[in-house]
């Protein structure tokens, strides 16, 4: 029987799916699950950034702050009004989207380097507000004792249980991203990224789509923020500083800008790598920095580019393999490529 690529894909997907489902049962301790939970949250942030920066070409260097907006919205609503995750989550998405749109407003006037310093500045401004508006935000102490959610009386109060919640959220975010990018909106994003000057001549309202890209990344960051707040039960401004923004950017780019799978891969590899590198203490960041430089200098398209580069070889190998199995010799089909 001949295997076609579709069935192969299906099999791979099922294996990956089962692995994802049973991971918490196999994990050595809940810390490992915790790391994976964080990976999931980074995936959501990275998908948001990828849409803004990878697809729409907008330098959104305020993801850390937008994440904070979601986390603080959820944290405060829970602490002050006792709302559960199911209510704080939509509020956080809306808040993230609104602030995201606000952060994106300067994009109507400035671009590239200028936009990056402006968004870095806004990230700082939001962080300073979190530190100093002590009455509202708790200042440097942040907000603690944020309640874990429950579903129909079933308490989602362990890392393992939360894992499934995040898994669902990541899948949903991924599918929504793919849906958004598959049609008109995705094409318009890429049009303003490829050539922001000519896109308007094709009827694309460049300003609107710039803002939309910022709003979407804000919504994703908002959702990630709410999930993080309820997972960690504790949030403080230092979690969402400029360096967090750079970290989110780094994982997105190491994975591959303009490729949603890249976001997933980058968000997985870098935090996990960081865990392993802990053993070498201070050297970890040096290795980390070197890894970034290597990616930028040699595979500027990120790890997804490595896969694309390898793809022809894989296809060649599998086709040879199939041919060998079905009895024909390799030489015969060398003219069909």
């Amino acid at each position, binding site marked *: 029987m001949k295997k076609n690529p579709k069935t192969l894909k299906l099999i791979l997907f099922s294996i990956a799916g089962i692995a994802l489902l049973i991971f918490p049962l196999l994990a050595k301790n809940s810390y490992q699950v915790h790391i994976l939970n964080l990976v999931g949250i980074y995936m959501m942030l990275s998908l948001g950034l990828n849409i803004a920066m990878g697809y729409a070409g907008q330098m959104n260097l305020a993801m850390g702050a937008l994440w904070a907006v979601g986390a603080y919205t959820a944290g405060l609503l829970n602490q002050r009004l006792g709302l559960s995750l199911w209510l704080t989550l939509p509020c956080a998405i809306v808040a993230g989207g609104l602030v995201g749109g606000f952060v994106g407003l300067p994009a109507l006037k400035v671009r590239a380097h200028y936009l990056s310093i402006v968004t870095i500045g806004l990230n700082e401004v939001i962080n300073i507000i979190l530190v100093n508006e002590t009455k509202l935000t708790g200042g440097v102490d942040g907000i603690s004792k944020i309640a874990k959610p429950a579903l129909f009386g079933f308490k989602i109060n362990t890392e393992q249980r939360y894992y499934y919640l995040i898994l669902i959220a990541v899948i949903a975010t991924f599918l929504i991203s793919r849906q*958004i990018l598959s*049609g008109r909106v995705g*094409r318009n994003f890429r049009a303003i990224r*490829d050539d922001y000057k*000519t896109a*308007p*001549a*094709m*009827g694309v309202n460049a300003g609107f789509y710039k803002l939309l890209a910022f709003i979407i990344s804000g919504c994703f960051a908002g959702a990630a923020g709410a999930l993080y707040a309820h997972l960690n039960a504790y949030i403080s401004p230092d979690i969402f500083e400029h360096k967090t923004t750079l970290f989110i950017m780094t994982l997105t780019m190491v994975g591959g800008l303009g490729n949603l799978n890249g976001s997933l891969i980058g968000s997985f590899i870098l935090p996990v790598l960081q865990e392993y590198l802990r053993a070498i203490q201070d050297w970890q960041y040096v290795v980390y920095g070197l890894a970034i430089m290597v990616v930028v200098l040699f595979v500027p398209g990120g790890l997804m580019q490595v896969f694309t580069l390898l793809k022809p070889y894989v296809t060649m190998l599998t086709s040879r393999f199939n041919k060998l199995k079905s009895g024909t010799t390799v030489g015969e089909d060398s003219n069909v490529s």
Partner: protein
Amino acid sequence: MFLELEHLTMKFGGLVAVDDISFSVNKGEIHGLIGPNGSGKTTIFNMLSGYYKPTSGKIVFEGKNITGLPAHKVTQAGFARTFQNLRLFKSMTVLENVMVSMGHLAKTQLLNVMFNPIAAQKENDLFTEKAMKLLDLLDIRQYAHNLAVSLPYGTQRRVEIARALATEPKILLLDEPAAGLNEVETNELAEILTTIRQSGITIFLVEHDMKLVMGSCHEITVIDYGKKIAEGDCDCVRSDPRVIEAYLGKEEDL
């Protein structure tokens, strides 16, 4: 009047690129705009298509004053254009390039295409079908799934025209569409222009290839140093002494 330019002026610092130019373009015609290098042709196109705000003067299209509208609004009003130097979207296939132009006509709500897979698919299918017809018109269907910028120059020019037509314009501004084409390709272009005009679209053509201009245009406006120096039909322009003088010593011959 279909399209009227009234006392259009464009200054860049001290340079007057377009100086008090007025003329009109008739519906259903091919109107030529010629002039030596740097005489302000592209600048006029940039004003018409909303890229530059005229320093002074008015652009009236179908009775509406469209001066200073942003480019995407001008496109929605019925203008389409190509660019003198090829400007195709570099990450997109030919098909996608053409489909971008259809977005502004879409009837489906934005949120619906963002979150409803069925509606999005339907829209994509509709766009694809329409785009394929345009690719047929320009005889580039076989390249539909190729990266647009990877194609030969002449083909890219066709993709640009297809992309402009996909906005469903009333008037099409072509900025030197024959630049870089060989003779065969230029002849094919002339045929394409005729087909487009026959479908009811007015064409406003900037071109240095005089054979193409003289062969296709109903009406020609000639500018030099930003000023209008002549207008009329081909014969009238060809024999105008000021036109001959403007082109004297330059490679283009009439």
